[in-house]
């Protein structure tokens, strides 16, 4: 079966390190911009305007109801075709775009449920004291909602780390891409175990951190 897993790792570890950095980078970009966009979508989906709410629900349903790989193919092949002005986007940017959009749909649901989880009585109390709805959102609802939102957002980042493996299909340099690189060196099975181990290590460490964060946030409860 050729060289063992450990031999391969020792020989090619810089390749895996680069891949890991790529994975973390793509996941970070996706979740960061996805959060900004997702927050906007969440705000819109909480609005009183029916049309805006409808658009938001379509947006979220389409992005959550279709596989990310399909979205990547569409973003790569058809978005530049449909919007001439977006044809300057290179392959990497198209794939990142689809990661961001996909993430934003999940994040918007996290925000929405986080905000909805704050007791309605809080809003009623604030409004009856004469606060405007924006003021109430800023000073009363969001500070409480953030406690629900942050751990879920961190979990979204962990999920995104695994999702970015699909970017390897487009030959972007992330962890899964090292498989292609090493297959070119006729190493077929060893990279799979190394990649699995690295993913597992990453997600375990991050889950641990999220657990600690949750503990800190629950102090005030």
């Amino acid at each position, binding site marked *: *079966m*050729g060289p063992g897993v450990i031999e391969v790792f020792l020989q*090619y570890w810089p*390749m895996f390190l*680069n*891949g890991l950095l790529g994975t973390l980078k793509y996941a970070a*970009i996706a979740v960061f*911009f996805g959060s*900004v*966009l997702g927050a*906007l979508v969440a*705000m*819109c989906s909480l*609005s*009183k*305007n029916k049309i*805006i709410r409808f658009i938001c629900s379509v947006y979220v349903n389409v992005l959550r109801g279709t596989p990310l790989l399909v979205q990547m*193919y569409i973003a*790569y*092949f*058809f978005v*530049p*075709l449909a919007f001439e*002005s*977006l044809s*300057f*986007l*290179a*392959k*990497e*940017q*198209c794939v*990142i*775009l689809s990661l*961001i959009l996909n993430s934003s749909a999940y994040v918007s649901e996290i925000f929405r449920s986080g905000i909805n989880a704050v007791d309605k009585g809080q809003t009623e109390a604030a409004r009856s004291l004469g606060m405007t709805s924006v003021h109430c959102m800023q000073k009363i609802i969001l500070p409480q909602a953030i406690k629900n939102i942050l751990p879920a957002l961190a979990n979204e980042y962990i999920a995104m780390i695994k999702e970015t493996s699909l970017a390897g*299909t*487009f*030959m*972007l*340099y992330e962890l899964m*891409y*090292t*498989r*292609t*690189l090493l*297959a*070119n060196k*006729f*190493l*077929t*099975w060893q990279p799979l175990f190394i990649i699995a181990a690295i993913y597992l290590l990453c997600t375990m460490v991050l889950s641990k951190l999220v657990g600690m964060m949750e503990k800190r946030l629950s102090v005030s409860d």
Partner: protein
Amino acid sequence: MKKIKLTAILLTVLMLMLAGCGSTAPKNTVTSAFDYDTSEIAKPEIDLSNAEGVLKDVLDKGVLVVATAPDNPPYEYVADDGKTLSGSELFLAKYIADILGVELQIETMDFGAVLTAVDTGKADLAMAGFGWKKDRAENFELSIGYHSSTAGSSCHCLMVRTEDLEKYDSFDDFDGQMVAAQAGSLHQMYVEDQMPNAVLELVSGFDQAILNLSTKKVEALATSCSVARQYAEQSGGTLSKSPLEFDLSMYGAYEGTVVGAKKGETSIIDVMNQILTFVNENAIYDGMYQQALDETGMIDGEE
């Protein structure tokens, strides 16, 4: 009124962000110009005055975009750094670009996406070890085949587990058995044509075929002789190149690898055929194939 204004602003910001995110992202890493000096190689005289369609666009823009799947050494592969592309088919692509007098740009993607890329206009040509196939020819314009005249390049065979080497003496022995080939590759065509009773197991990447064979999911896989020898060596004796080789004489002018373009783009394929005829007549691909073999350190020729 105020609310509508707010919503409009929000939506505008949203659109701007969509456009903005793309441009703030780091520059593409893998799509790259490709460097291979063809000045020493003889080139045919090609009349480009009647260029139409994609070919005209290529000449106007001064860039030839070729889509490929860099997981097929020595034909096309990525070096260890994950960025540098190389391989004999990409050398040929550079040669073609130089004849046309344009820059070469290579778009890398999964094998299954390569033909989609020419269909959607992402790329002008597809070069990823494609063989001529009837259904492919119906949906795409395909050039004539090109191949190296050295033994290895025009040699395609089966690969089996070493323990089964004695078990299979002819293609007929595989009746009802599973045989793996990369979807859409030359080898899929060979298996379909020459092993009609075998059960074809299509895989999207070649490493999956090797895994299938090692884990006994298939009885054999079809590949080129040089790749088979390389994997046989890498496997430490568990896998072997089978002496069963495919008969390529039945494919005539379409023997070997073809270049693909979008259906209806006959102008660019005409030019490709002229170039490839010259390449085949003057054995130009031999040198490219040999250089790629040397770069990868792969084994070629007769055992």
